[in-house]
């Protein structure tokens, strides 16, 4: 084969390779200047990897960006594969920390953790609070009011039309169409479904009749994958209703919820109020802040349909360097600045000052 034929091709390939191998412009600049004044005397460096809840994904993005900007040699990777994947990976040693919509259960706590020093366990620290919305797409209905029993009826398939008596009773004067309700729920297992079913099991047990679980238990309506899938399905189908993390509900109308005697609009503050009003789970290790959410909270403006997401870390790591990085990261995450940044991006509720202080204190015990 003639050299003259290969040479031009080779030159082309080499040139394009050089061009493509150019550094990303945003990383070059980030490495170049360390922001003055915000970094401590010694900046953090190293790599830690986390896997976990996709609900935390947007918040994690802003937290990682924040801490990496202040510490340019630090590399944190958070893989939003799902809470179950996160806990599995953490237990098997595939991840340095995990993000999870559910705290470690007793069975998992009884086992061993590959990343942790012998004899120590893992702790759950709440870092993300997000309200769950009941979103709907019905023409002509702007201000839907629902209570737990009606929601249970709709999502279990007992209430099938929009102008059903039970819905009309709560919404006097609303123009409810005579149309079948298209229920949209999650097809994949998710923390959102877990929290939604926990709320219904606590507030409308006889209508709902099912144990809380990550899988939607009824074969009613359409199922869609992920928050974005559910949002897309609800937007494109007429007369549909779904439960969805509030951050994904843009473009849909959100129903008001009956809490106690009043109808409450969804709000991050309401979600935070419920979490503040909830006790910690008893019988866990010191430093473990798993929360037993008070689903039947009836204080004013509370929004009990809430999701709390945790970061799971070892009390003591086998590798001290990893331990100190994880500790610093969680302390940053629970700080007011980071929580406000996440709230601005993801629409979550920032941790209350009290809870934030508890989380930071617990994170400081991580070695």
């Amino acid at each position, binding site marked *: 084969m003639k050299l003259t034929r290969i040479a031009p091709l080779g030159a082309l390939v080499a040139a394009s390779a050089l061009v493509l191998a150019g550094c990303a412009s*945003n990383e070059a600049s980030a490495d170049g200047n360390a922001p003055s004044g915000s970094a401590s005397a010694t900046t953090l460096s190293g790599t830690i990897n986390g896997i976990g809840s996709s609900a935390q994904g947007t918040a994690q993005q802003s937290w990682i*960006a924040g801490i990496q900007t202040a510490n340019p040699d630090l590399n944190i990777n958070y*893989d939003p*594969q799902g809470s179950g994947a996160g806990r599995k990976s953490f237990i098997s040693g595939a991840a340095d920390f995990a993000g999870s919509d559910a705290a470690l259960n007793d069975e998992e706590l009884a086992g061993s953790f*590959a990343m942790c020093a012998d004899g120590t366990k893992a702790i759950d620290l709440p870092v993300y609070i997000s309200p769950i919305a009941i979103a709907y797409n019905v023409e002509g209905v702007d201000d839907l009011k629902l209570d737990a029993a009606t929601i249970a009826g709709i999502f279990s398939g007992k209430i099938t039309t929009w102008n059903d008596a039970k819905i009309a009773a709560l919404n006097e004067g609303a123009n409810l169409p005579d149309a079948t309700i298209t229920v949209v729920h999650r097809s994949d297992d998710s923390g959102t479904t877990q929290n939604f079913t926990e709320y219904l099991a606590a507030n409308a047990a006889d209508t709902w009749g099912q144990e809380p679980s990550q899988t939607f238990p009824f074969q009613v309506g359409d199922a869609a994958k992920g928050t974005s899938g559910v949002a897309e399905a609800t937007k494109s189908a007429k007369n549909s209703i779904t439960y969805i993390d509030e951050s*994904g509900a843009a473009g849909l109308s959100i129903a008001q919820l009956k809490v106690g005697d009043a109808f409450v609009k969804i709000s991050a503050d309401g979600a935070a109020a419920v979490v503040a009003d909830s006790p910690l789970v008893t019988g866990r290790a010191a430093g473990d802040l798993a929360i037993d959410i008070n689903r039947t909270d009836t204080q004013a403006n509370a929004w009990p349909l809430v999701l709390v997401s945790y970061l799971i870390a070892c009390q003591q790591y086998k590798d001290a360097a990893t331990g100190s990085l994880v500790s610093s990261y969680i302390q940053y995450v629970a700080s007011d600045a980071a929580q406000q940044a996440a709230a601005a*991006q993801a629409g979550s509720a920032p941790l209350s000052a009290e809870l934030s202080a508890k989380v930071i204190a617990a994170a400081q015990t991580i070695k």
Partner: protein
Amino acid sequence: MTTTVPGTTETAALGEVSGIHPPHVPLTGGSLPRGTVWMVLVCGWLFAGAFFALLWAADITTTFSLVGTVFFGTVLFDIVLYVISRIVEGARRAKDRLVTSLVSTAFVIALLPLVSLIWTVVLGGLARLDVAFFTQSMRNIVGEGGGALHAIIGTLLITLAAAIISVPIGLLTSIYLVEYGRGPFARAITFLVDVMTGIPSIVAGLFVFALFALIAGPAVRNGFMGAVALSVLMIPVVVRSSEEILRLVPNELREASYALGVPKWLTILKIVLPTSLAGIVTGVMLAIARVIGETAPLLLVTGFTFSMNYNLFDDRMMTLPVFVYTQYTQAAGVSAQASIDRAWTAALTLIVIMLVLNLAGRLIAKIFAPKRGL
């Protein structure tokens, strides 16, 4: 249109004499005039259009159905054309016209989703088609901005590595199957390659994950693992398509080469492979296309990162399909639209990369293929 059929009077006379009556097959048939096909097609659409317009006017349907018009118009066209052609030209020509129209319709039907897809991707991807997208990664980006350079480099490196692994193995296997293989080993390999085509991509990912967890521990994630997972998916496609192409090389070429004293291996390398080069390159391109868009295994074994990574053997790497998937599913909160825009532009980039690779492959095939004779 009248036709004169020469010879009918003679055959009729013959029939009367001999008692044998041959079937009446006109030696020359009539022919439909040139514009008939298009005329019938347009008439068909017009009729269907009128029908659906009537339905709309009579309030039976809410909107004028364009899809219905085109579909039923085309069906009408097929039927009418077949009937007319059968009457005028005879059964054989009528069947030929019918097949022609069916084949053309098949092509148009396949084009529709393609056009729709490309249109959707281009429309969605235009928003972020800027320099920043191709020169930045997602490190420290919150909300707007950022780019997919880390994903582009990742995809190119991993696909290249996967091709380097799969093409030699796949090609050599198909050479074995076509040139050498007789007996149980060859039959087993053929069978197993078929089985391999059906491995779901996520199972390939799980397998590679388990394999490397055994060797290097469960925490390891790198681009090379992704390349191995992709080659598990690529190899059967390469084997299947090259095998078909190699089988089509005429035996005369091989035998001429042996007759001249060329050893078997040189025959394969210098005669068989160059002859079938175009087909093999198509097969390799197909295989690359099969895996370049795979999300599931890469999600599992190559991981997720915001930053650039040039090292295949160390640490997580971002790839375009994973980027598209995570940007779309993570689109939440205030800057949801920014994420969705990035997702579409990344999808567009992936398609363009594939287009470039395809063209490059065909160029290579054209440069290195021997001149075709007859």
